[in-house]
């Protein structure tokens, strides 16, 4: 049996909707298989993984808390990937954003003012943007591969945070725990509703997604992103600069990742500590692709991936599997999304038997 592809005349509208759904279905099926192999009842396991967390108010709040950074980061990444700039260091930009945003509450905790919080958010965005500017600078100036440099910067950022929280910024009254002082109330991102912990970051995420969607759909800048991503040459003829696009897309996604970082620290954690993210920056890559690099799609996929985090935690308690299952699920989703996306651009035909001789080549 062989698989043969035939290019469609134009991208299939039907399959661009069906493909993510198909991918999720396949993920669920292989998830069931996985649980079966672990010796669990697959239906019960899937139920407690994907349905249980949706049934209680507090866990819906947790869902929003986890979806917010994923959506924020993924929306920025979608602009990068559409313009062919492969920023995979969002985790590092998230970390640096969190650090820069924490400068005020950690270093001048005595300054109580309503200006603190907006300044923190701005500094977080600035920090993330500048950190993403490093691979942008290296790519435009020295022609280095942004995939590798942005990833290396993740390790550097995490080690820097580790040093800060164990060294320079460690709370002297913190019983030797590696963490900074707790943020003062005016430095904490307020909660949205009375009923739970969800805070303003989910609002930032939704606003960012809609804004970027508007830019990509209705503004010249969005067109520029798409054209340069499809063909740099065509973009040059239209007078667009690929160099400036590198800067724009990297710094935009860096700023959003930085905002996600400081929102997470300010809203959910309340201080800096060596580990502030369960891999949001990397999971956001999956979110971006599952959302088909469309900001509105990313909102939906952000909630799906947030659910895998929650489900992992829930399944740990209810069916006794480890939280590592979450990472497996997330990896599987991306795989199935990428394979199902083939259906959008190509007709796939299965050919049984040897086939004609001519076709057997390659």
């Amino acid at each position, binding site marked *: 049996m062989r698989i043969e*592809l035939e290019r469609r005349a134009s991208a299939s509208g039907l399959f661009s909707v069906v493909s993510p759904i198909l991918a999720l279905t396949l993920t669920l099926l292989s998830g069931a298989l996985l649980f079966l192999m672990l010796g669990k009842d697959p239906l019960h396991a899937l139920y407690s993984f994907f349905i249980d967390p949706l049934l209680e108010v507090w866990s819906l709040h947790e869902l929003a808390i986890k979806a917010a950074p994923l959506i924020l980061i993924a929306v920025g990444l979608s602009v990068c990937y559409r313009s062919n700039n*492969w920023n995979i260091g969002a985790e590092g930009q998230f970390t640096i954003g969190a650090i820069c945003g924490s400068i005020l509450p950690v270093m001048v905790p005595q300054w109580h003012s309503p200006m603190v919080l907006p300044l923190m958010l701005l500094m977080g965005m600035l920090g993330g943007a500048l950190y993403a500017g490093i691979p942008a600078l290296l790519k435009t100036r020295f*022609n280095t591969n942004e995939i590798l440099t942005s990833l290396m*910067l993740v390790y550097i950022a995490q080690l820097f945070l580790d040093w800060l929280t164990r060294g320079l910024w460690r709370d002297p009254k913190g019983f030797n725990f590696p963490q900074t002082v707790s943020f003062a109330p005016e430095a904490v991102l307020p909660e949205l509703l009375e009923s739970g912990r969800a805070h303003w970051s989910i609002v930032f995420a939704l606003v960012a997604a809609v804004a970027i969607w508007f830019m990509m759909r209705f503004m010249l800048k969005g067109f520029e992103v798409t054209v340069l991503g499809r063909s740099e040459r065509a973009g040059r003829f239209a007078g667009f600069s690929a160099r400036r696009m590198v800067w724009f897309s990297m710094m935009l996604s860096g700023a959003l990742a930085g905002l996600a970082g400081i929102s997470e620290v300010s809203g959910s954690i309340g201080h800096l500590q060596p580990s502030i993210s369960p891999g949001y920056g990397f999971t956001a890559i999956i979110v971006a692709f599952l959302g088909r690099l469309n900001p509105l799609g990313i909102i939906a996929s952000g909630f799906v991936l947030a659910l895998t985090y929650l489900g992992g935690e829930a399944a740990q308690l209810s069916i006794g599997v480890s939280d590592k299952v979450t990472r497996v699920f997330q990896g599987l989703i991306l*795989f199935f999304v990428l*394979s199902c996306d083939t259906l959008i651009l190509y007709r796939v035909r299965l050919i049984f038997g040897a086939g004609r001789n001519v076709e057997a*080549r390659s």
Partner: protein
Amino acid sequence: MFEAILLTIVTAATPLVIAAVGELVTERAGVLNLGVEGMMIMGAVCAFAGSYLTGVPLLGVLCGILGGAAFSLLFGFLTLTLVANQVATGLALTLLGLGLSGQIGESFVGIPGVKLQPIVFPILSDIPFIGRLLFAQDITFYLSIALIIGVHWFLFKSRTGLKMRAIGDNHGSAHALGIHVVRTRYLAVMFGGACAGLAGAQLSLVYTPQWVENMAAGRGWIALALVVFASWRPWRVLAGGYIFGAVGILQLHAQALGIGVPSQFLSMLPYAVTIVVLIVISHNRRTTLINTPACLGKPFVPDR
């Protein structure tokens, strides 16, 4: 003391060299597999499992190689048969590998592993200074050297190697000449996977003979950078691998000596050096363009 440091440098450099030379072959065939980190960690966990369950570390090495190669097939299927985006699929391979290896290796955490025994060449290993360094190592070291020599010979002295380079530089023309583009690329991807798996096996059987989650710690990515550093030439991979290995080991020794720099900053060194090296290598656009396989990362659908 000096010899001991050199010995650890060799051990640290070996996985980098092996993984990088495998990726070099994959990239020479025009396929960019960013999943080295994932294949490496899968190789590490498979090798540990094989060695632990059979009690024979050599079988563990074999399991690592097979595990890496099998895992790379997933990448091959997506990018070669389904023509998915290579960058995204490579990332997917890494993310899935990290998750899957954590799941598989969960029951191995904390179990002391069996170290792969060195193969000592009599007489030769008695040569002062270099004897123990070069002739009393474990099998992965010998394999790493053999791989460099073999890959160099294959790429530049053999007909199949020439065809493979042709595919990497212009898959359309190669296809028109009747060279099996997709089939060759499958083999190249699997070779890369097998090498990454072997590198992982070295990590969990030689470097630190135990299973630790995420124990590849970015080495797969450094191997990818090494391929760029080597401008797709096997011998330079060897040189680069040892430079990176040396940086990694020397910063550890500096930490132990306590030279007044926080350990975190020293731990950053290998990653920072990678960035600096990439800058130095890539800043000349023209030479980069000449060295890079022209079809690297480009999708190929055979027309009929």
